């Protein structure tokens, strides 16, 4: 079996940024909204 061509590490940076953004942005939105709804618990 021929040896596969290595993927250059630098070309993966944009892909890493995009894939992590796709999952962390909604997660950050969910966290923000949840923390907002937690505030009444400690406000009293």
């Amino acid at each position: 079996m021929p040896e596969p061509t290595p993927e250059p590490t630098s070309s993966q940076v944009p892909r890493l940024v995009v894939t992590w953004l796709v999952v962390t942005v909604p997660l950050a939105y969910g966290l923000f909204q949840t923390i907002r709804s937690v505030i009444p618990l400690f406000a009293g």
Partner: protein
Amino acid sequence: MALSFLDREHTVAKPGYSRWLIPPAALAIHLCIGQAYATSVYKNALVNHFESSLTAIGVIFSIAIVMLGLSAAVLGTWVERAGPRAAMFASACFWASGFLVGALGIATSQLWLVYLGYGFLGGIGLGIGYISPVSTLIKWFPDRPGLATGMAIMGFGGGALVASPLSRQLMALYDSGYDPADPTSVASGSAVTSLFVTLGVGYFLVMMLGVFTVKVPPPGWTPAGFDAGAVTAKPMVSAADVSAANAIRTPQFWFLWIALFCNVTAGIGILEQAAPMIQDFFRSGGMSSVAPTTAAGFVAFLSLFNMAGRFVWSSTSDYIGRKPTYVLYLGVGMVLYVLLATVGHLSTMIFVLVAAVIISFYGGGFSTAPAYLRDLFGTFQVGAIHGRLLTAWSAAGIAGPLIINGFLDAQGTPGELVAADYRPALFTMVGVLAVGFVANILIRPVAARFHEPAGSAGAFAEGKV
């Protein structure tokens, strides 16, 4: 063939492929299927639309969770053989079609179609999706399996955090009469139909990110600087592989099944009852000092700890070991339940903090389990074994609410209960945790007669058998 890109052999990473692309691929799946924990957002809207009971609508979620356990157990070996990309694609198709068939059911007022769609089809998507990235993550992160599976399974907890506010905002967009800030406001059936279509399409697209990003490491790959000998030299970590069929014949599997079952049963006991529980604990003279908005804040606080526990405790288990981590969940869990029962009513802060740590242990139990399985049974069919272990979750989903509701029904009527009425249920949970604690202590390394012969595991992974 058009779908050949899904085959395992087409997903083998080229040298140099960053393993840090795998956790977001896994998160893309788990964040979407974690929506299953946010069904309460449109529960009342469906009760109104179908003019049915809460129980009849609750059956939708129950079918989905039962199908999760069944499909993970039955299809686990297929997931292992077909590879993560095919499994994630199948999960996305089932999950999205579940929403679309469910939307058709709401639009045509046919509740059975919602059972079939979200419950049956969506539940299969849940089961396949839950286990699809686990084995791949463990193979990419042999040095930190707890961290890797913790990240993915944290996404399942995070999925509800995203889906709850997003669903409220979307329903407000589709129904001008619905106020997301008002807990008594109920959206129309057509708004829930549109919500289901939006979520089905949206989740399918996000899950495709996982499908097109996930890759399996080339045979024999290890991360730079990784010393396999150092890992297997740790107590309770095996270098041998055990098949899924053999794993369920070992006492270790069933001891871990019992430990997970007990941990989940105890956690569900609080999660199921969280909002009324905090109000009942601080009730005096028929009036609770905890307002409904504060109780809702408590539920949100628990969901944060549920999610954080999945990541923090599972990552910690890479350093202290899986067995000691389960000793923590079950042993300290017992102490915390006793504290909750005896001094929880003295201060809301004590009550909130103790309950939050208990729920972090509940979440941690889920995310540490795949790494525990890897330690005991190797990486060979860890995804399939994990699928079979998840039947403990399905069983606990029945046992936990039965225990807590059974005791509370015997103590009085909802809305009139006080802290003392919870004590029998909480002390029963201490007993449940003690059973799990003993089961975990009894776990020893798997006997050599269950190990795969050298070489056969690699042949399976490459699809040769």
